[in-house]
């Protein structure tokens, strides 16, 4: 066969996807069992929907769901529009050198680990010596402890995401903006359209499909709620607002050893994510957009 070598080259990759992506999917079957590590997956007992029913009956369930959704909504409303706005502003810059400098600077935070981001945030907000604590210190010298304040958990998470990812998020929109036909602008200027009108009638329609695709992709990990970040920001004081599906899977599954139950929680979350991405994609298509697939 002519392509034998090509198929041989596919083997390592296929093995990777089979073992580390599809085997865990099959492993979700333990969420219908009472999985016992000593018996293994073949000898453990099937228990049907027991773990799912337990999850839905758990008083924690509603809080998990709402914490996850609220955090996702914060991200969608406060973070998602920012890369688009910054990309539009960058696109208006005249000097290429200045533009390059700004781009280099705003991309950097994307490459910093969550531990460092959260670490910098902790040290800056530390009640003992944080620089922001000092700036915010009240007239009577009272200390503001944002880290210990439950109401500040979600804003801090969102601000960290904004700092880390806004600049990087502009790349895709800048690429879309670079594809807009310059003649359209020239014609619009001759017709007397001002900057605002050009933005509304040329630029935004031109990058609309990119915005829609990014929105659909975001829906796919709508419920992922930045696990590493939330995990790092979580402490015993803010658990009421910081416990989301992913952190709950970790604590109930790996720390408390309830493999089957937490696999069920993870399964439920993945299904809801899949449902979200498919329905948003359908919706986009209904409005005449291209969609993902």
């Amino acid at each position: 066969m002519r392509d034998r070598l090509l198929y041989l080259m596919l083997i390592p990759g296929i093995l990777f996807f089979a073992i580390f992506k599809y085997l865990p999917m099959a492993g979700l079957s333990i969420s219908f069992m009472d999985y016992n590590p000593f018996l293994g997956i073949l000898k453990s007992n099937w228990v049907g929907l027991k773990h799912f029913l337990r999850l839905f009956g758990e008083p924690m369930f509603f809080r998990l769901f709402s914490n996850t959704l609220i955090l996702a909504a914060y991200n969608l409303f406060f973070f998602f529009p920012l890369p688009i706005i910054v990309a539009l502003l960058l696109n208006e810059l005249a000097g290429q050198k200045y533009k390059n400098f700004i781009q280099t600077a705003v991309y950097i935070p994307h490459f910093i680990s969550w531990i460092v981001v959260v670490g910098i945030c902790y040290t800056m907000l530390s009640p003992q010596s944080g620089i922001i604590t000092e700036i915010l210190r009240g007239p009577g010298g009272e200390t503001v402890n944002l880290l210990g304040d439950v109401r500040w958990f979600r804003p801090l998470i969102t601000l960290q995401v904004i700092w880390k990812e806004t600049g990087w998020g502009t790349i895709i929109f800048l690429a879309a903006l670079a594809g807009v036909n310059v003649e359209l602008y020239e014609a619009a200027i001759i017709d007397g359209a001002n900057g605002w009108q050009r933005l509304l009638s040329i630029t935004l329609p031109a990058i609309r499909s990119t915005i829609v695709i990014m929105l659909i992709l975001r829906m796919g990990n709508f419920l992922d709620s930045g696990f590493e970040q939330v995990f790092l920001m979580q402490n015993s004081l803010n658990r009421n607002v910081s416990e989301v599906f992913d952190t709950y899977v970790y604590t109930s599954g790996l720390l408390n050893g309830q493999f089957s139950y937490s696999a069920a929680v993870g399964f439920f979350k993945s299904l809801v994510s899949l449902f979200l991405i498919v329905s948003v994609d359908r919706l986009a298509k209904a409005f005449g957009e291209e969609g993902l697939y």
Partner: protein
Amino acid sequence: MSRTRRSNSLLFEIGNRVFLFLIAAACLLPFLYVAAASVTPPEELLVKRIVLIPSRVDLAAYRYILSTKIILQSLGVSVYITALGTLINIAMTAVMAYPLSRRNLRGRRQLLWMVVFTMLFNGGMIPTYLVVSSLHLLNTFWSLWLPTAISAFNLILMRNFFQEIPDELVEAVKMDGANDWQVLLRIILPLSLPAVATFSLFYAVGHWNSFFNAILYIRDTAKWPIQVWLRQIVLLSSGGFADATAISEAEYIPSQNTQYAVILFATVPVLMIYPFLQKYFAKGVLVGSVKG
């Protein structure tokens, strides 16, 4: 009319420049603050509290770090994990991306679907942990390398990049008797150096920054990368709030400027390779590839 419009647009131009400068500054200032604080004498940090330019440079934090074994050792571990891990990533991704980029390969569509589906749905933390554990990878570096050997997203981007290389070129080389393996090594990869550089950066940063898999899979503290120690030192020990469970987990409470210095140690390597690879990634690879 036209004069007001011109002055309006000048005003916008200036305002835009200033605003974007402020955004860039907000991205860079935290690093400068951490760098300054790491060389500030501890007593000055305690008294003045807001320090951007220290009165004198105090390298005690760095001497302390160089004298402790764990931080240097974990830096070494991180370099090792990153270097070998990235090599595995690039080899696995390129070797799979090349056949998928050949338009006449039968079964290509189905294979691509198999790859894309893993981006939409996954088994999650617990089943993956059970797979890693049943392969006896726990507590070895393989647990950090193998489960992340290929990123589906990078694979598809690399395939798109390979696809841009003209078929005629590949066919011509094959006419001269080269097999697909030689085509990949001698034609495709050399022509795709910007892409390979970009994906190396992405994979390397991913390995350098990852900590959760190490927490999950590696018990032996001698095998912990720097990021895990950073979590111990900065997050669990900073007395930011009265979290008793967190404080008891930490082994000791290091001084403020030691924390800053460790943050810098974990960040600088990434900042050092960034300018060399930065020129590649804005062009080509990411452009027009959102859809895969």
